[in-house]
């Protein structure tokens, strides 16, 4: 009969024993207080996973579709054609001298990114149920990665915009230097909205149906089709509550060398930040139950 201690090499005798234990636990698991903020240290530890998840989304989308990257160009391009026909020609929207196709495309490229990013992000958590119930990582990475993956399409779509600007012989100004900042702002706002939607979606599957509808309406109040100046000045402050309106107008100003509405942009930045904080907080609150209810 073997003695149990013969089978168990004590850790001291074990030549391959791992390095000494840290004095403080690496991880403490306990019921969380809902007010606790997102664990930023955790995010840093998993930064590579963010990249891999975004990379997977891009790869899979391009592999599964016949036209692949062409969709990134076709979507805004066709919308531009339709808008030009109906709003540019038939309705004769006043764009203050900017050719309507260019006006529309300059707004549609960032808008398409935002719309796709929010939709993908909102459905991302539910679509990753198999991951969430089997392995731990900061759950917020899933909706964030879905937004980040959309950036690839945004860059490709920008090429069409460059083509259009060459065609209309629009000279670049120093204003384009603001584009990266606008890109960051759009990304952050998309994360703010998308992350919140993704968490709601786990609890209420209505989100999947409500989201496309919401985004469609949103398009009409985001200064994509008509400039905000068409609205009477009295009501323009209402538009300022929608950060996308100011952001889209700023894209246009940056590309076409028009004047920036700094006040509106500042309000948009503040709202974006607020949306991001609220979204992170509400995500955190439901995060702990994801694995149980998804």
């Amino acid at each position, binding site marked *: 009969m073997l003695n*149990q201690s013969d*089978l*168990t*090499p004590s*850790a*001291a005798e*074990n030549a*391959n*024993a*791992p390095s000494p*234990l*840290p004095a403080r*636990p*690496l*991880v*403490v*698991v*306990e*019921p*969380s207080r809902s007010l606790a903020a997102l664990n930023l240290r955790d995010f840093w530890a*998993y930064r*590579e*996973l963010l*990249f*891999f998840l975004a*990379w*997977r989304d891009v*790869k*899979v989308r391009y*592999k*599964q579709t016949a036209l692949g990257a062409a969709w990134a160009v076709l979507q805004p391009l066709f919308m531009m054609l339709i808008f030009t026909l109906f709003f540019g020609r038939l309705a004769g929207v006043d764009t203050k001298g900017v050719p309507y196709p260019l006006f529309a495309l300059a707004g549609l490229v960032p808008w398409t990114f935002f719309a796709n990013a929010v939709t993908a992000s909102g459905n991302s958590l539910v679509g990753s149920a*198999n*991951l*969430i*119930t*089997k*392995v*731990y*990582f900061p759950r917020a990475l899933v909706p964030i990665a879905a937004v980040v993956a959309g950036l690839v399409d945004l860059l490709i779509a920008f090429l069409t915009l460059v083509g259009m600007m060459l065609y209309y012989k629009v000279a670049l100004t120093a204003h384009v230097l603001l584009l990266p900042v606008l890109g960051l702002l759009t990304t952050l706002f998309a994360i703010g909205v998308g992350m919140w939607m993704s968490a709601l979606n*786990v*609890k*209420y*599957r*209505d989100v999947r149906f409500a989201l496309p509808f919401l985004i469609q309406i949103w398009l009409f109040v985001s200064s994509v089709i008509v400039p905000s100046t068409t609205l009477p000045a009295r009501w323009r402050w209402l538009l300022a509550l929608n950060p996308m309106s100011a952001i889209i107008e700023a894209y246009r100003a940056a590309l076409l060398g028009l004047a920036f509405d700094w006040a509106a942009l500042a309000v948009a930045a503040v709202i974006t930040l607020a949306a991001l904080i609220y979204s992170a907080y509400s995500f955190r609150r439901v995060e*702990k*139950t994801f*694995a*149980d*209810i*998804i």
Partner: protein
Amino acid sequence: MPPIIKVEHLGKQYRLGRAQAPYSTLRETLVGALRSPLRRLRGGEPATFVWAVEDVSFAVNPGEIVGIIGRNGAGKSTLLKMLSRITEPTRGRIELYGRVGSLLEVGTGFHPELTGRENIYLNGAILGMARTEIARKFDEIVAFAEVEKFIDTPVKHYSSGMYLRLAFAVAAHLEPEILLVDEVLAVGDARFQRKCLDKMQSVGQQGRTVLFVSHNMPAITRLCPRTILLDAGKVLSDGPSHQVVSVYLSAGLGTTAAREWPDAERAPGGEVVRLRAVRVRTEAGEVTDALDIRRPVGIEMEFDVLAGGHVLVPNYHFFNEEGVYVFVSGDRDPAWLNRPRPPGRYVSTAWIPGNLLTEGSMIVGAAVTTPEPARIHFFERDAVAFQVIDSLAGDSVRGDYAGPIPGVVRPLLQWETRYTPAAREALAAVAERQNS
């Protein structure tokens, strides 16, 4: 020696009924919010909660390999999920003094459209490996999985064996200080399981800490010097594996061959019928969960009829371990066919002939229904389960063949042979007769 894992008074509470409605729609919540104040006024149905894990405490020293056993629903998986941070505890605390890798499934996050190479990187990152670490071990992983030729093929074109090998290869090269493993060995063929067990053993020898949840008692006793037995969410026993495993087996916790409902109020059923027990019996009347493939099996259901006047049909539903609905059998006993049953205690047994079922697990659901007007009095889905064992005795369908045999049933059939000799054979036979 300070422990590497410290678990203190850990508890996890689930709300009952969540399984049927895992997510709600907005409308239901709104309607619920309007109704619930009324419900509270009426003092109606209180929410029922259940502790999947209740007040569990233990510590694990670095380098220990600890088995976790217990029957289904004992809280093993919930415990593992809390340790791997997939789900949060309701109370208590876990301290982990090392990097945790959890293997609750192989191939988590594998995407069919991506190639083997791409999936290795993706899966590695999901399991917590750094990109440089994956790159360093890449060739080793590919060699272990034996998929060199197909590494740039999308995994949707892989055979299930290749897929599994690749998935396990990535997981096997994870090098955390603490490894949590759940039933990974339940998948794959015997050779693959062997490989997994060997790998687990070598992981243990490298001085890493392993927590291993399994139903495979031989594997537990061989791999783990120490075992924790969970029952109803609590630690029932914790100590040397051979002792704990024998506690498990002798306490009848290991058997799934009998289920009894001693409390009539809480038994499945309603005002007409209540299920009281389901048992798996051999011809000799012995209750067992391990049955010889050649012998008949009796499934016995004990139920009380509380209100007379109903035609009642006891019936059984058989599922295999993959969830395939193998067959259904309803009571055809002429004594009670279409005849209303008076109140009383009934024991109905269905006999499955020998040499019909295939090897492996059978999960039996038990129900009593009324055909006209159709009504299900109860349907207990996972009432009992048993294992069908095919020994190499030579007189079963298997004969002397030792390899795997596919199929959901394995009936022993009567075979008939008719033989007409070919012309040449016939002539040879005649010639032979003349020579002799």
